[in-house]
């Protein structure tokens, strides 16, 4: 009984020390980590838009600039090893896409990582109708299926957002339903 009590106390001490180290480091690195993530996101948005992306984008249900000439849509699609998060630029029925996070098999699914492969960059500004017809990638069927489904999913997400937050009839007219700012 006494040895069990000692074991529990020892485990609590070790767990507490580990937790303390983690929370203190988290607190001290939170600011630079947040800044790095924002900088990376801004670089990605600008790369897709091929010009400096606005820094004050308002995201509603994962969609930014829903009433503009172009829209950013972020979402996720089920892949082979978990959800594949993506960012899409929709512009005049054309799509450019980047995968922002995934857990697919390294090596086999590297083609979806724009930092390792030009596969997605080479397909920038593809007509949405053609996106679903992309040739399959041998050995990465499920990953590629997820990729092909992203265009339709992004369009649906944009449509739903516009239904929920209708666009103003003319420039300058206030939105009928003021959205919450998710950004």
């Amino acid at each position, binding site marked *: 009984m006494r040895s069990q009590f000692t074991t529990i106390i020892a*485990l609590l001490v070790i767990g507490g020390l*580990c937790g303390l*180290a983690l929370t203190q480091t988290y607190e001290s*690195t939170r600011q630079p980590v947040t800044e790095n993530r924002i900088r*990376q996101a801004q670089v990605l948005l600008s790369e897709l838009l091929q010009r400096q992306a606005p820094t004050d984008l308002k995201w509603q249900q994962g969609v930014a600039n829903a009433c503009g000439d172009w829209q950013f849509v972020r979402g996720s699609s089920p892949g082979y090893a978990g959800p594949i998060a993506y960012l899409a630029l929709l512009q005049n029925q054309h799509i450019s896409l980047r995968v922002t996070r995934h857990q697919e098999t390294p090596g086999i699914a590297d083609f979806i990582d724009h930092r390792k492969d030009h596969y997605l960059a080479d397909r920038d500004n593809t007509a949405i109708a053609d996106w679903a017809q992309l040739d399959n990638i041998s050995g990465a069927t499920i990953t590629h299926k997820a990729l092909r489904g992203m265009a339709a999913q992004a369009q649906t997400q944009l449509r739903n957002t516009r239904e929920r937050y209708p666009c103003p009839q003319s420039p300058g007219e206030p939105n009928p339903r003021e959205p919450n700012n998710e950004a």
Partner: protein
Amino acid sequence: MKPNDFTEAAIANNPAWAQLLGLCPLLAVSNTVANATGLALASAFVVIGSNTSISLLRRIIPDIARLPCFVLIIATFTTLTVMLLEAYAFDLYSRIALFVQIIVTNCMILGRAEVFASRQPVGRALMDALGTAVGFSLALLALGAVREVLGQGSLMADMDLLFGPAAAALEVKVFAVPPLALALLPPGAFIIAGLLFALVRGLGRTARDTRAHAEQ
């Protein structure tokens, strides 16, 4: 504190070429010297931190739960490394994050904790951790240098990701056209690692034979 704990861990019992431990990150991240240096520093931080902590806590770590405790401590240091890399070396973190996160499963680190750090005083555990870190770094950097020269034609490219803009000047262009692109790919990693390990073992055997000859 014994200095031979250091040389034992770094050379004679080198985790990579003598024990063939930690080969997954070793092969995956050694495609350039910059990546190899990043992983070497991250692994060194984890092995030194965890070995020292385990040695300090060895009297209160319950024997029946020692492995979960070791894994908890190693996971803590791995997570600290991930946070620090993401905060202060973000570009490098983006390239090697996956392999930094799996340091927690590196049997080299768990092995040193179980075999050495949990049974020795802090000084010896620290020397052993330093030796293990240096040994693993030597293997990583040697493999990274050969693969980068053969596969990319350069040496020490992208060092600015680790050490700031001034380190960009360290890059040396060895070949205008890379002579063996295969070196950057996983099969190339296996082949070059095999040849390097064979070379190191061969040199070790020759040195032993020469010593034995001299003693006779």
